[in-house]
Structure formats: C-alpha cells, structure tokens
C-alpha cells in the first residue's frame, strides 16, 4: 500500500482541523436485526465525505443517527463537540446545527417555497421575519431559482424542489450538511443542477456527508470515501486511491458492479 507524498501532506493538514462528527463504535438494531455494527469514523471541519455502499448496507441509518432521526443503541456520536444523548437540549442544539437533505425532498406542500425556507429561521432561530425573508431570497438566488419564491412546492420540478430543500437546510446556517441520496429521485437532466449546487457548497467550505451513487461527484468533490457493507465500514480512503486501487475484495466487487 503506497500513498503518495501529496496525499500525506493533505492528510496532515486535515488532521490538524477540528473534529465535526465523531462516530465511535456505533451499534444500531432494528429489533433483532443489526443495521450498524460498530461504525467508527471521524469527519473533520470543511471535509466532504461521500458514503458508498450497496443497498441495505446501512448508509441511511448511519447518516440519520447523526441528527437523531434514528436512535443508536451503543457507542458514541459527537457532533461539533456535543454528545448525542437522550437530553433533548443537546438534540435541539445539534439539529439546529446540522442541515439534512432527503432523497424525497420532504418539502412542506401547504406553504410557499419562501415560507418553507423561512419557517425554521423565524421559529427556531427567532429571526425577525423581514431578515429571514431576505435570507430566504438570497439563498434561492444562490441555488439558482429566485423567481420561484412565491410558488408552492407542488408547482416545481423535482430538481427545483431539491434545490429548495437545500436552501431550506442552509437557512438555518448549519455547520454541517447531511445528504441522503439527494439525486436518486430525480430525472437524469435534473441531477446536474442539484450536483452543481452541492459542488458550490463544498467549495465554500461546508462540512458535508453525502450518501450518493453519483461516482462522478464522489471522484470530483469528495475528500474521502467511506465504503460500507452490511452495517460495517469496509474501506476508507481518498477517491483517487479508492477508485483506482482499492484494497478490500468487497470494495473491488462493488466497484466492478457499478462502474
């Protein structure tokens, strides 16, 4: 196993950054079925991590444990230095710092796009309405659909809806963004517009954890790739290494199936 000097230098710089997400031996059961088996990984500030793995390998389960949409049973999860326990205040604090984008958008269908974005800033962050709306419009500008502010989600295309969902998450000014297959429900011609927004976000220095099947995106944007199977982390590495020279057989098999 030979890693080039450049990669080492990058890794050293990375190591000096603060830990944003620490997952330490996380176990998760659904009834008798163990969905996560001692998942251990650390994600640094401004790092972009792409999680790959076959269907049912526990990617969604893991990412959802990180903002407590699922509850893990064993091990520790620390987000930005705060440990996830049953203490509701910690959960509230973490949720307001972690933005999440879902495969099925999950926009609120009964309120306008702008209201979707401003609801949480107004009621959770207690921003004055005017300020929140300005922020909302700026974010819509940033994701490229400023003209859709007053429409309802149902009137938008899938790609536009997903961009609204990203803007909604960003409106809380999170320090971390989680993406669970953000482009899987989209038609091919809409995938690019969403990925472009995500690339821009990565460049701006956001800490991101992305579950996706978009290998091009992973190769281009990821700092590290985490490969999971059957609830375990099988292999971790920078994309150039991961795609060209994987060490584990299971990784090779997976790559041979999808590439």
């Amino acid at each position, binding site marked *: 196993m030979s890693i080039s000097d450049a990669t080492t230098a990058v890794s050293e710089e990375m190591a000096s950054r603060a830990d944003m997400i620490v997952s330490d031996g996380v176990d998760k059961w659904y009834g008798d079925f163990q969905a996560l088996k001692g998942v251990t990984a650390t994600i640094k500030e401004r790092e972009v991590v792409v999680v790959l793995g076959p269907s049912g390998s526990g990617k969604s389960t893991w990412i959802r444990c990180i903002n407590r949409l699922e509850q893990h049973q064993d091990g520790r999860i620390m987000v930005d230095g705060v440990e996830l326990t049953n203490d509701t205040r910690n959960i509230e604090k973490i949720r307001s710092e972690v933005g999440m984008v879902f495969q099925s958008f*999950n926009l609120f269908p009964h309120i306008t796009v702008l209201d979707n974005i401003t609801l949480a800033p107004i009621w959770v962050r207690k921003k004055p309405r005017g300020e929140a709306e300005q922020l909302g419009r700026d974010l819509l500008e940033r994701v490229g659909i400023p003209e859709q502010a007053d429409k309802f989600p*149902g009137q938008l295309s899938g790609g536009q809806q997903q961009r609204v969902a990203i803007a909604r998450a960003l409106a809380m000014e999170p320090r971390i963004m989680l993406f669970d297959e953000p482009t899987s429900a989209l038609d091919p011609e809409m995938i690019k517009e969403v990925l472009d927004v995500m690339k821009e976000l990565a460049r701006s220095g956001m800490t991101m954890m992305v579950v996706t099947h978009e290998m091009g995106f992973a190769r281009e944007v990821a700092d590290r790739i985490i490969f999971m199977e059957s609830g375990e982390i099988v292999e971790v590495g920078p994309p150039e290494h991961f795609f060209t020279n994987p060490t584990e057989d299971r990784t090779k098999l997976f790559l041979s199936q999808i590439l």
Partner: protein
Amino acid sequence: MSDLLSSEIDLEKVLAGADEELAVRPDEPSLPPLEWAGKNLFGTGQGSIGAIVRGTFLTVIFAGLALLAYRAVLNFIFSENAGWDSVRINLRLLFTQAYPDENYTRVWVTVGVVAVLAGLSLGMTKVGPGFSFKRIATWLFSWGGLIVLGVLLREPSVLTDSNGETRFADSRGVELVRDTNNSLVYQNNDPAPSTGISALRENFGAAMGDRLGWWIIGLALLAIGAAIWFVLGDLRRRTTFVPAIPLALAGIGLLVSTTWWYRWGHYTFTEEGGFEYGPGELVATSTRIPWTIMFVLLVVAYLGGRLLARATASGPIRIGLSAAWLLAPFFTYYAILRGPIMDWAHVVSTDLPLWVLFAGLGGALLWLLTRPGLGEIGRILAVVVLAAAAFTWVGAFFGWFSMLQKVRLSVLFLGLTALLAPNFIGEARQRMKLVVGWVGFITIFHLLVTLINTASSIETPSEDFAGGFMVTIYVALFTMLFSFPLGVLLALARTSRMPLFRVMATVYIEAFRGVPLITMLFFFTVFVNIFLPGSMELSLMAAVTIAFVLFSAAYLAENVRGGMQAIRRGQYEASDALGLTTVQRTGFIVLPQALRVSIPPLVGQTIATFKETSLLAIVGVFDFLRMARDVVPAQTEFLGTRKPGLLFISAVYFIGAYAMSKYSQRLEKKLGVGER
C-alpha cells in the same frame, strides 16, 4: 353586440373586482342538444345496441319515477287545503319562538351583525370570474323547463266553493249539490247515483288557464335561456361571465323586495298568551323595513369589504374578521339576545379586579418566561402554574375552599399558555406577541364569563327564551366552535407518544361513539345536575350544547386523525431535522395538512350536527322541528296542520346543509386538496 360585450366585461371587473385576472381554462365545447341527449340519456355513442337498450330502459324508468314524485309534491304544494297560511302566518314563531315583541329589535341587531360580517367577508374573498353565460343559460333552461313541466304535470285542482267545501260530480262530470240532509243530489233534487261519485275537478283547459302566471314565468325563463344560448356563439357563451357575488346579492335583493308587496306573515301575541293577526304596532315585528335595512347593510358591507381587500393592511383585517366571526355567536347570544342585566357592584368589586390580576400578572409572568437564556426555570414555572390549577380543581372536588370557576379556568389557561412560552423566546417584539395574545384572550374570556353569568332581562313565556330556528342555529354554532378544538386535541392525544394521553383519548372517543346521541341528550338534561356541586346548575340550553359538543368532538377527532395518518413520515422527519419543537411541528406542519385532507369528513360531521339538532325536540327544547310539528298544529286556527310546516323546515334544513356542502367544495378547490 361587441360594444355590449366589452361593457359587460368592464362591469364584471368593477363588480367582481377580480383582483388578479384568473386565467380560465376553456371547457369542452357544448354538444348540440340532440347529440347530448343521445349520449347522456340513451347510451348512444358507445356504439353498441346493448348500451342503447340499457341506457334507454334506465332513463325511462328513472324519469318516470322522478316525474311521479314531482307530481305528488306539486299536487300537495298547490292543493287548496295544504294550509300554507300556517307557515306564512307563523314565520316569526318558527324562527324565534315567543321572543317578546318589545325586544324584537334585538333579533334584528343580531341579523344585522351577521349581515355586516357576511358582507365584509364576501367583499374580501378572492373570487373567480363568476358564472359563465353557458352555465346561466343552462340554469334558465332547467328552471323554465321544470316550471313548464310542473304546470303540465300537476293534477287539475279539486274545485272548492266559497266556503272552502269540496264540490262533487258523478262519473260523467255532472255536478252534484247537497240537499237539506247534506247528502249529494243533482241540481233538480233528483237523487244522485250511489256509485261513481268523485270530487269535481277543473277540466284541463281551465286548469291551464288558471296557471297563466306560471306559464308566463316558465316560458320567459326558457326564452331568456334560449336567447343567451343561441345569440352568443359557443365560444363567447363559455367565456362571458357574470360575477357570482353581485348576482347572488341581486337575488337576495329580489327576495327582500317581495316583502314590500307580499305579507310574509304577521301576528302579535296578546296579553292573555294567545296571538292575533295583524302587522303589529312595532317596526321590529314587521318585515319590510327590517329586511330592507338588513339588505342595505349587506350591500354596504360588501362594498366596504371590496375596499378593505385593496388596503395594504388587509392581512390583519382578515384576521380580525375571522375573530369577529368566531366571537359573534357568543356576543349576539349573550350580550344582545339575552339582554343582560349587569350587576355593576359585582363587576366593580370582583370581575374587574380579577381581570386586571390575570391580564396584568399573567402578562408579566409570560414576559418573564420568554426572556432569552431563562433555561429550565421557564418549564418549571409553567408546571407549577398547571399544578396550582389542578389543585384548585381537586380542592373544589373535596369542597376544601370555594372559588369562582372563572378563576380556576384562568389559572389553567395561564399554565397552558406558559407551556407555549419557549416558542416565543427572543426579541421584545417576539415576546410581546405572546403577551398581547394572552391579554386579548383573557379579556374576551372574562367578558364572556361575566356575560354568561349575568341574568337576562328578556321575559318570555317559557323558561328558555330561545326557540325555533334560533335555538337550532345557536346549538349548531356553539357545538362547532367548541367541538372543533376539542376534537383536534383528542386526535392529537390519541396519536401522542404518551400512553396516558393515548389511552384516555381512545377511551373517550370509543365511549362517545358507542352511545346514541339521543341517550347522551337525556343523560345531560336529566342526570348531570346530580353530579354537579350544589351551587351549580346547568340550563337546558347549556346541557344539550355540552352533550352535542362532547358527542361531535369524538367524531371530529377520528376525522382529524384520519387526516394525520395521511401525512407522510418525511414531513415529520423534515420538521425534526430543522429543529422545530413538537408544538411547532404540530401547529405549522401536521395540523394544517391534516385538516386540509379531512375537509370533506369534517364538513360532513358539521352538516350532521346541524341536522341532528332536531333531536332537541325530544328532550323538551322548543327547536325548529318542535315548533313545526307540535306548536303550530296546536293553534286553534291550524289545528292538526303539520305537513306544510314540516315541508318548510325540511327546505330550510336543506338550504343550510347544501350551502355548507357547496362551501366545502369551494374550500377544497381553493386549498388544492388532492393536487398537492
């Protein structure tokens, strides 16, 4: 013609004031009448003989049945001895029972309040372009056709003489007269045949002649319909609109104008408790001037509403209007119709100080609880207040100390509001919202309780001053206003994660759904007073309203729960991921969507409640049904005349229920149920 059209369109803009030009989707072009009839009535167009035979057979059978029913209804409505006078003369009795004449202005003030609110609301609603000429022509055709059909269909009347006695004829149609023994004989005193005697009927020609007025109306409607249909081309017929609300107002105006030439019933009560005919001395007990004033109020309020809708602050005005609608039943019932006699000494010594205490100290407490950085202390204080509220109830139960019910409720409300406080932590403006909301709420609450506890100055023959349609409408309104929030709370409790709430709500809902409403009504009117502390007593109205509220809430809860189950899990996850609290998630995301989905069953339940108020007749309330079924037929003049009254109240119930159902359809469309 084109000039005429363009001016119509301008008029339409001015009247309907379609704030935004709503694009109209052109509907299917109209089929020629014969083709339409073939396709819709006789199953042509499917290209199979079987379909045609089946279609024709069904059409003939059902048309025949419908015609028979129509004819029977018409025969009754227009028969000489139907007794419509019993309704016409008793209109006031049917609607307001024996509400005293000298106070009757109060009834008109109440109607006036409704007229003003309705006008404002109509003026402020955004409306579509209105009714297309195609639709109007179709209506005119239908009504004209129905009238002409009815004129032809109705049996020739049985002839009656000037004394109202039916006249008879033999089987050939030769008239028979009564001799001195009151038996039927021929004119020249020859005895009549013993068989083949029947009531003398008009011949067909004479009957048609008698119905000249109806002929003219029916044919005129058909002619106007035809004029619109054939003079305008198909496209223009479908794209020329008459604004709906002004059209409806014109219709109401037409109806009101009839009071000026037709006496819709008038009677006055005499000192002895009977009644006599005559317009009455008071303007309030007549029809034309009050109804005209009501109509003017409605129109003026409508125009005012149109102006307000354009105002920049129309948002808050709309909220104010909704609040006025919510409060109107309470204030019209307790402050206007009951004519409260205020006990000012009590007001000054007790009511006002209590109000100041709760508004002031409560407001201050909430201000404190919304201070940023307060932390856990807020929740603890809220729980302390709630515990105090619980303690006052427990104390009342064991009779440890006496306390005004109002105080107990106020403490409870304060505790509940304090629980909401964490959602309002923030800047002064944010905090002020909660405080102002609380002060407004507690002010209205105290005012209402004071009004409710105040004796009424209205003296009526029976104990309950409200009767007739008035009691129907108020019980229905109060039931809706209270059962709705209760139903929502029950639905939330039943879906809550806390087992205690879930079990309690489930038991409640199943228990109330398992008991017949009529049993509940008896229970509340007969038994409940036994369980109340000695000083408290439920009036009949309060008892039946509570029964209705509790019953209806159980059904509403299930409807709302159904709506909540239709919400996908992603909505909850997205709310949680954004950091919304449970209260915020419920209030902003879950309930709005759940209520939208459950509009049809909710309106269904509302309509059911409206109609089920007629069960009140059985527990001794003089409601609409009882007036028509028991009270009117007991008058010496109309002894035993039930049918017209029952038909009339059926029509009124139908109009109310149909209006609600139409409104719900509009609401559904507006909120886009099913689309999003």
